[in-house]
């Protein structure tokens, strides 16, 4: 990861809050703040799990890469689509780290969409767009979207997916609303 400038450190410190369990970050919902938010999530990944394999599954770089990739796409969607055609608002990020999983909630106050309306891309056709939600769904174990004001996209990834709580299959990519055509 690149070194963080003093200005970026100040921006992170100004935007961050930690209540002992969840990291809170609130930034303007524009792509200019994408890198900052991605760095926070990347750092949060390092707080997940245990350093001792005997007490639980351990993280690896590949796991971190998948979380960061998924979050980056989610932030893109919020910045590009949620505030499309309206005055840009804030994006709130809540990151909950535990010994077995990370849960990231991305909250915006813009346009809503429906996960079910986003088609699975045809990778054989070499698509140049429409890949964001596919990346999110592929790399995270649970993805849930609740439209409204605010819209809340919740994503969870387990260190060991086999140990995740048992849920109904329909819970995996669930949402309950409609809206724009998002990628």
């Amino acid at each position: 990861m690149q070194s963080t400038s003093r200005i970026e450190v100040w921006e992170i410190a100004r935007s961050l809050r930690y209540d002992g369990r969840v990291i809170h970050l609130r930034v303007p919902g524009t792509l200019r703040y994408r890198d900052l938010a991605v760095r926070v999530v990347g750092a949060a990944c390092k707080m997940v799990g245990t350093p001792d394999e005997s007490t639980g599954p351990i993280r690896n770089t590949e796991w971190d890469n998948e979380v960061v990739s998924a979050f980056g796409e989610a932030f893109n969607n919020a910045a590009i689509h949620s505030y499309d055609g309206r005055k840009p608002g804030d994006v709130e990020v809540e990151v909950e780290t535990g010994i077995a999983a990370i849960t990231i909630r991305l909250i915006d106050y813009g346009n809503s969409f429906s996960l079910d309306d986003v088609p699975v891309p045809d990778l054989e056709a070499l698509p140049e767009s429409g890949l964001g939600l596919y990346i999110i769904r592929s790399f995270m174990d649970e993805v849930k979207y609740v439209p409204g004001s605010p819209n809340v996209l919740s994503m969870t990834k387990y260190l060991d997916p086999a140990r995740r709580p048992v849920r109904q299959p329909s819970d995996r990519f669930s949402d309950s609303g409609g809206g724009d055509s998002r990628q």
Partner: protein
Amino acid sequence: MNFTREDNGDVTVLRISGSLDALSTPELRPTIDALVAEKRPTITVDLSDLRLIDSSGVGAIVSLYKRMRALGAKVEVVGLKDQPLAIFRLLRLDRIFTV
């Protein structure tokens, strides 16, 4: 994101470093357009120093590949590792690029 273009005979090497994402990808588009317009025969995209890529960055590279392929040119991607490699594998782009 930084990038350099180097022409050696028929071969053009495009080196991209840093983060190729929704914010930075538009900076690369004019260079891609120029490579297509010039009908360069062989293009090597060197991603050895690329730290992060998102779907926008992938879209730009796939666009380059498809447009050059339509001209009969060759495009290869080298140096993929870490997060960019994970994305290319997920999107099954490793089947068309040498990675």
